[in-house]
């Protein structure tokens, strides 16, 4: 053959147009360029200008084209015609659907607004949906944080005004040692990968702490294969080592934390454990300049970490003393915790020493002057270049809140928060608990709720209880069972509604939440609750309305389906009022807009709420004449005013688009966003880029931007006084008292300084009988994505064996292709197994949410997801097994109510190979047609 090359056009046509919007394949919210050909979506890539992903895009994002075109998309509103759970529906018009919903909801609102439970799953419009629920007047609203990562979020807010992901990030450009706890893929998907790439390129070091060595942990320089549920103990052992060696940043602790704040130490006082305060209510420190009391924020004050103070015979000691009392104790010595954590004591010491070495010997300085809130000028910004990140792995335990607190304490004693090389907050964070709303739940028939549902309680007085002390919310959020449940408890709604405790509801209204499948514990039990009937043959949960874009497992259990659009067919705002997309160096928000119009009879859920809100006459959704206020969600995004000058979008405000942060309504705002690539960003001034909570420069900028209306500098709360107030109540102090059966739990777990206690399941099941920890992770190519029906992604992750460590594999004589029966105190599953050596020796795990129900997601009933795929959820119950005290305890964190997914203990035995993974659930009838047998996807000619 010849060497003649064919003629090749190396500059072929790419696309007619690039439309820039925001991804919704997970919670990361990257900017995407959608290439259009002939009005169709041809290719999706990352937006290089976008602050979140800077051009890169993960597997999910690139597979968005398959999600957008998925055969599982719902096509029209549906009304159930068969029994619940059968999947038998008829298509109805939007007029019928909205009339029905109005007819159901209007009488509820007039008499008992609390009988609507409105929970919104993976909602990215919570500031809007909560506004709707507030207008309706029900106290029963939340999204999915309660079964996701509320421990991380709440511990972060209470301790330092923010945690990770949306709140903060490592200083990737300066950090020299990065320590990652319990993260598989997780939120902040692309930024973490970009960050790891940056530190790798610089040759900086990364330590992964995770029972499972995959993903990020696979590239970590050091892997610590910790035993699940013991992260807090490991962290506090490092705190012990660092404090004992004096390797703590004393100057930072004195100036920027409450380590110097004086605490009442008289056990007989009703103020025991509370801060000494002045007449203005300000916590007191001793000023080193004078040796006298001074408010923490007094001008020029230099707080003293050592001095104690006597008032009327009562000794007050600084928080730092209490920390020394606790953490210098040998209880936290590496030798005392090593076996439990599964980490040799020597290794714990080595890691602590390395943290000390890098933080103090490799400190960095930026030549940027700044002024702190006490008026003290600093010539430089001094950084401790050690950084941390954590998310669900440490938080989805019943000791997760305190573990997250412990991690923040470790960061803070090293002086590594809001300093160069450490962790940095993302505006509008940091924001302390005191700057957030408190929870609201006062119901008035026919009227709005008395304030925003979710918030941060500061003591028993903020709990949502009726005069008899019963919870006023259906999920029992903000009750004695879990006082600081800042994100609500979506995972308890169905079981509480079914039990009629604390009361019965009428309508369960949910959005984008697969509560009959992978988002619920005790899946089979939930199916029974959703389909259970009373003595009259009526459903115990009388009505269920559900909105989803896809034929998920939840659809079959609803009476009325409001079909949503795909993310490329809708308007959205990623708002500063909600869960923003900002980066440490800039405040940012973004939109979605319909880059294509739906080809089905579907509507964006938020636009449906605008109309439903108007039909119900909800305040905020009707004009004075009773007419509909917002035509659709786009209209709301543009014209809604939350506070004077502040609306859903912070960019391009004022009629000419000049307003940043604050400003009047701009009718062309959405077009301005589209023209700017779908987002808006304003950079933090250089001298305000670090020390944000303490910096006059930052505080002034934050007010200018509209994050809050007055400057509110604060110090980090190593000692969280609100926790002490709940603990004091449990000791009998105060008028609002917990029920007796909860006193012990509250006293033990709501400690104002971080503690560690064993996961609750350890005390309810026999660890000898159930010696194995069982975990789930989601694969990087699917994390937080909605379903696994994606044709490309399911070819990558279509199977989920249970991975077993060598010790268990060998002990049971497993071979490739074997199956195992896995049993917990609650149930049993029979599943395929595979060997993985890079695992904690007593931990097994699988990919979560690969398993699908037959009939869902337009998949063939023989799809591996439905035959061999499985969920660990069958093994987990929302309540812990009885232990003979006559009570059933929640399988959740006692502080926040976070679902304790990762406390699960199991035993494993070899099983004969069944036809399918057990248990097998009967198929549900699909409301949509099955997908095609083959696909050659190319929209261009």
């Amino acid at each position: 053959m010849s060497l003649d090359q064919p003629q090749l056009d190396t500059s072929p046509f790419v696309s007619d147009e690039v439309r820039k919007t925001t991804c919704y394949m997970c919670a990361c919210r990257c900017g995407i360029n959608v290439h259009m050909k002939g009005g169709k979506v041809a290719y999706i890539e990352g937006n290089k200008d976008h602050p979140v992903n800077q051009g890169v895009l993960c597997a999910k994002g690139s597979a968005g084209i398959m999600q957008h075109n998925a055969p599982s998309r719902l096509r029209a509103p549906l009304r159930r015609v068969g029994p619940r759970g059968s999947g038998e529906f008829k298509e109805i018009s939007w007029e019928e659907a909205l009339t029905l919903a109005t007819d159901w909801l209007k009488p509820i609102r007039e008499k008992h607004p609390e009988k609507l439970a409105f929970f919104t799953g993976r909602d990215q419009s919570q500031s809007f949906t909560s506004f709707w629920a507030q207008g309706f007047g029900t106290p029963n609203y939340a999204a999915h944080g309660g079964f996701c990562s509320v421990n991380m979020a709440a511990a972060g807010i209470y301790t330092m005004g923010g945690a990770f992901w949306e709140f903060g990030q490592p200083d990737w450009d300066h950090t020299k040692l990065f320590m990652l706890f319990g993260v598989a893929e997780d939120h902040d998907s692309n930024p973490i990968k970009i960050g790891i790439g940056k530190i790798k390129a610089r040759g900086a070091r990364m330590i992964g702490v995770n029972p499972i060595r995959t993903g990020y942990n696979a590239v970590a320089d050091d892997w610590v294969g910790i035993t699940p549920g013991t992260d807090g103990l490991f962290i506090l052992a490092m705190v012990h080592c660092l404090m004992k060696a004096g390797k703590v940043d004393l100057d930072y602790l004195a100036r920027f934390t409450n380590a110097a704040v004086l605490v009442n130490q008289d056990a007989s006082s009703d103020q025991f454990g509370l801060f000494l305060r002045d007449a203005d209510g300000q916590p007191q420190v001793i000023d080193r300049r004078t040796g006298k009391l001074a408010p923490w924020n007094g001008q020029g004050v230099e707080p003293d970490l050592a001095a104690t103070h006597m008032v009327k015979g009562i000794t007050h000691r600084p928080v730092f003393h209490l920390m020394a009392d606790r953490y210098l104790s040998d209880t936290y010595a590496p030798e005392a915790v090593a076996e439990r954590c599964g980490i040799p004591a020597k290794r714990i010491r080595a890691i602590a020493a390395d943290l000390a070495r890098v933080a103090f010997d490799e400190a960095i300085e930026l030549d940027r002057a700044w002024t702190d809130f006490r008026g003290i000028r600093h010539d430089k910004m001094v950084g401790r270049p050690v950084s941390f990140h954590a998310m669900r792995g440490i938080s989805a335990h019943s000791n997760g809140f305190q573990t997250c607190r412990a991690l923040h304490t470790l960061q803070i004693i090293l002086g590594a928060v809001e300093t160069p090389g450490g962790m940095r907050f993302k505006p509008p964070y940091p924001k302390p608990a005191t700057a957030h709303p408190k929870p609201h739940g006062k119901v008035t028939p026919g009227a709005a709720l008395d304030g925003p549902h979710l918030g941060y309680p500061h003591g028993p007085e903020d709990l949502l209880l009726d005069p008899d002390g019963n919870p006023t919310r259906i999920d029992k959020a903000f009750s004695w069972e879990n006082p600081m449940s800042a994100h609500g408890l979506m995972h308890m709604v169905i079981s509480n509604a079914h039990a009629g405790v604390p009361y019965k509801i009428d309508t369960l209204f949910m959005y984008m939440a697969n509560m009959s499948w992978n988002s619920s514990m005790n899946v089979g039990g939930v199916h029974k609750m959703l389909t259970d009937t009373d003595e009259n043959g009526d459903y115990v949960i009388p009505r269920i309305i559900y909105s989803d874009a896809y034929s998920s497992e939840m659809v079959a259990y609803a009476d009325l389906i409001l079909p949503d659009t795909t993310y490329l067919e809708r308007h959205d705002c990623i708002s500063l009022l909600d869960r923003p997309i900002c980066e440490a160096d800039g405040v940012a928000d973004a939109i979605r807009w319909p880059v294509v119009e739906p080809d089905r009879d579907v509507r964006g859920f938020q636009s449906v709420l605008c109309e439903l809100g108007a039909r119900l006459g909800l305040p905020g959704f009707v004009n004075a004449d009773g007419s509909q206020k917002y035509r659709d969600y786009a209209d709301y995004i543009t014209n809604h005013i939350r506070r004077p000058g502040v609306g859903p979008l912070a960019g391009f405000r004022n009629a000419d688009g000049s307003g940043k942060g604050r400003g009047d309504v701009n009718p062309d705002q959405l077009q301005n966003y589209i023209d700017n690539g779908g987002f808006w960003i304003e950079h933090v001034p250089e001298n305000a880029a670090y020390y944000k909570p303490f910096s006059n420069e930052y505080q002034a900028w934050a007010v200018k931007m509209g994050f809050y209306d007055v400057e509110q500098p604060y110090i980090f709360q190593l000692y969280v006084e609100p926790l002490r107030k709940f603990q004091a109540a449990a000791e009998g102090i105060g008028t609002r008292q917990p029920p007796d059966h909860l006193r012990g739990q509250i006293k033990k777990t709501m400690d104002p300084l971080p503690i560690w206690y064993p996961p609750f399941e350890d005390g309810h099941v026999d660890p000898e009988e159930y010696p194995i920890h069982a975990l789930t992770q989601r694969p990087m190519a699917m994390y937080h994505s909605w379903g696994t029906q994606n044709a490309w992604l399911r070819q990558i992750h279509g199977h989920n064996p249970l991975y077993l460590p060598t010790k268990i594999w060998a002990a049971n004589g497993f071979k490739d292709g074997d199956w195992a029966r896995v049993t917990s105190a609650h149930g049993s599953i029979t599943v395929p197994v595979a060997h993985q050596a890079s695992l904690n020796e007593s931990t097994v795990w699988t990919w979560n949410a690969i398993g699908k129900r037959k009939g869902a997601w337009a998949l063939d009933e023989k799809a591996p997801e439905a035959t061999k795929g499985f969920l660990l959820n069958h093994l987990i119950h929302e309540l812990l097994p009885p232990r003979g005290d006559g009570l059933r305890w929640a399988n959740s964190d006692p502080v926040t109510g976070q679902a304790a997914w990762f406390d699960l203990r199991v035993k494993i035995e070899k099983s004969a190979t069944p036809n399918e993974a057990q248990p097998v659930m009967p198929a549900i009838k699909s409301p949509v047609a099955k997908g095609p047998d083959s696909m050659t996807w190319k929209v261009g000619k």
Partner: protein
Amino acid sequence: MTQLPPPSAKKLGLVIDLDTCVGCHACVVSCKGWNTENYGVPLSDQNPYGADPSGTFLNRVHSYEVQPEQGAAQLIHFPKSCLHCEDAPCVTVCPTGASYKRVEDGIVLVNESDCIGCGLCAWACPYGARELDAAAGVMKKCTLCVDRIYNENLPEEDRQPACVRTCPAGARHFGDLGDENSAVSKLVADRGGFDLMPEQGTKPVNKYLPPRPKDVEPEYDILAPYLEPIAQDGKGFAAWLDKTLSALPGGTK
């Protein structure tokens, strides 16, 4: 059989950093998306919603567990696509001349209109880097995004392979490995980049950067002084506090 051209001066290829690849499959799907819509026939999928879905991919990530002699087992993510070999057996084996190596930059391509789908090239490739598309019956392989890297319809910054542009961790690098001063050549030199299966004699252009050593036993003796307890004289807490706080500028009092 088809002849290879004399080695080109310009050798475009990829450098893949196995120390940084987190195994996220972003490159796999970005490649699938671009090459489904662009060069040649689309990358088809069979039973995409069925019992045994399979499709054509030009780039796949494999994960291998490695058990070192000492220490914990490790997991290596290993992305694999055509390595654009200098001595490409897939080209010389092609009976129709459909497979060829470009004279100007060394990219190995398939001219689909001449491909008869005989599969000899896939058989000859020691890396398993070619896939016969089941719907079109033609051989598909990595094109190094030849329709992107020179494409004047794309902004200059986007003229790189889709997999490189999308890689979130920055583990994929594209450039001229024939130019010893190029960024990719320097990276290979600095990091000890290696050829995949050099014994095959294919002289791959693509290089892999090895994972850095992991779980290195810490130098306990050097680290120990960092945790030297402050108060060892038996006076306990008071002594500890006193000594700790004396570290503050200006002392404690």
